[in-house]
């Protein structure tokens, strides 16, 4: 609680947090939606925002607001699965390769490099095509997670490599810490800002990728996500026909989501670095 209070003194954390809470509430609201997100012609079409439909309606006859609640929910699921799962893999692989070195390092980094050098997008498209019907929200997340860890594992590994050489590693060993606590207690704090910032870029990437896949029609277009919402709006020329509420909603939501994540990550990683925190406190007071 204390920590949260401290964090909330940073306006970026506060705003990011509030944004995220708002998005989470939106996502949660989807469970109470009066409309089925997949069905068409539930409301009159192409209505501008009004009291009845606060974000208007689209050409499919759906209420944009309620559709957006589903979209944000699903996109969050995709992004979180992709982000967290790939983080877990990246952290495990990075730590293992960096700390153990030797064969484990060679093999793991070989796999990571293999993933990195293949034009990832191409594979994504092919696998998305291969999975076809199986491109559910969860599977989309898993797929993105599968391709999203390699670079970050590499970065984490190199950080571990240099941390391994620092003297406090030995102090920790001398204090009787085993590999697990060494890694979690000594290295994790150093890598957390990195993990956070890669988490954010990974989530951003996942959301962007989902949008790209949607624009290419490679995910299930009926399931509302930020990407498919955008794709329908694009295909139905919402921009040129002046249905700005339709196209702007997913864009603004994407931006809000990423801004929130960005600020949260910046603020949290600053918080985790005592040097920076001290500086911040000093700066604020003088």
């Amino acid at each position, binding site marked *: 609680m204390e920590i949260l209070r401290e964090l909330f003194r940073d306006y970026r954390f506060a705003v990011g947090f509030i944004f995220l809470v708002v998005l989470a509430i939106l996502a949660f609201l989807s469970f109470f939606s009066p409309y089925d997100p997949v069905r068409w012609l539930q409301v009159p079409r192409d209505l501008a925002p009004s009291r009845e439909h606060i974000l208007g309606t689209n050409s499919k006859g759906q209420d944009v607001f309620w559709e957006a609640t589903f979209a944000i929910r699903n996109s969050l699921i995709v992004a979180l699965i992709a982000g967290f799962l790939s983080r877990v893999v990246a952290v495990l692989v990075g730590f293992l390769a960096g700390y153990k070195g030797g064969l484990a390092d060679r093999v793991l980094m070989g796999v990571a490099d293999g993933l990195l050098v293949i*034009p990832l997008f191409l594979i994504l498209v092919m696998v998305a*095509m291969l999975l076809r019907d199986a491109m559910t929200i969860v599977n989309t997340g898993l797929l993105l997670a599968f391709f999203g860890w390699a670079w970050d594992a590499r970065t984490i590994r190199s950080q571990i490599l240099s941390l391994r050489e620092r003297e406090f590693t030995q102090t920790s060993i001398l204090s009787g810490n085993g590999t697990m606590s060494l890694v979690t207690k000594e290295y994790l704090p150093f890598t957390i800002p990195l993990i956070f910032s890669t988490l954010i870029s990974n989530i951003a990437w996942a959301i962007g990728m989902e949008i790209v896949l949607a624009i290419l029609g490679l995910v299930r277009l009926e399931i509302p996500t930020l990407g498919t919402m955008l794709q329908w709006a694009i295909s139905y020329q919402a921009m040129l026909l002046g249905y700005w509420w339709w196209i702007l909603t997913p864009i603004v939501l994407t931006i809000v989501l990423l801004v929130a994540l*960005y600020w949260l990550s910046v603020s949290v990683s600053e918080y985790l670095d005592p040097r920076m925190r001290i500086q911040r406190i000093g700066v604020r007071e003088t």
Partner: protein
Amino acid sequence: MRFVRDYLIPRLIQYVLVIFFGITAVFLIPRLTGQDPVLEVIAQIQTQGASLDPVAVKSLMESLRELYGLKGTLGEQYLTMWKRIFSLDFGPSLFQFPAPVSMLLRIYLPWTIGLFATSTILAWILGNILGGVAGYFSQKRWSKVLDAVIMLIRPIPHYIFGVILLILFAYLWAIFPAGGLMLGRKAVFNLRFVMTVLRYSFLPALTLVILGGAAWFQQMKLLVQNIKREDFVQYASAGGVKERILISRYVMRNAMLPQVTQLALVLGQVFSGVLMVEMVFSYPGMGLLLYRGVTRGDYNLVMGITVLSIFTITTAVLVLDLLYPLLDPRIRHR
């Protein structure tokens, strides 16, 4: 010599293995997607009005399989593929039969390199410089404003951003063309040619530079904010070293190192952004070529492009790994 034995040779083996597995994956995956390039062509011919009777279809399919080199088991095809790779001939494009893949590459590669390489490098330079300076002066007002603006721009999908630029600069204020590069096959390389190409590439490049640059900007800014707190920066700063020198030689140079490595790898991840840009601006590039190849089951084309790109990226990474000690004196090969 120990360097060769302990570092270079394992690294080279890794290089070869990565290429090998990458190519094998790219060989297998499209064959699993259920597309049959021959059927794809048959379907096209049917929509074209030709009435084929079943016997004819059968024989046509046979002869197409023969022509396309798709006869035989997967294993045989796999061998053929390696033979082709070693003879640097990827065979004909299946969907754009009989155009050889190598010819298609010759046509599109320069465009892609022209647009993509320049805009990536430009984005990299701009993003890093701005990010570096903004990170250094992160307490300043303008830096915060810039950060906010970029934060808002970065999440915009390439497609949307491209269309917005198109509407702004090719319609509302029509100073740039909406697409359709009119050079022709007899294009001569002269000033007009260059100007035309620049005019047509400007908006696509702008999209890539701004969106790409925004990502670099954010990364660089974070890096710089960390490096700014290192002892050597603090010391030099306390020692009255000029800010200009401090930013460029201390902060940026150190922050640049990870960015260099990433640049090489970004090459591998471009197709998505570039594809979208090519779509919006009808730009002749590899992204669309590849995408169509994938969706139409044009194995040869996909193979050609991916082999090329796997090879380039792997080599770039290898070269970078070998040269990295020159950039960062602290790194030793081990």
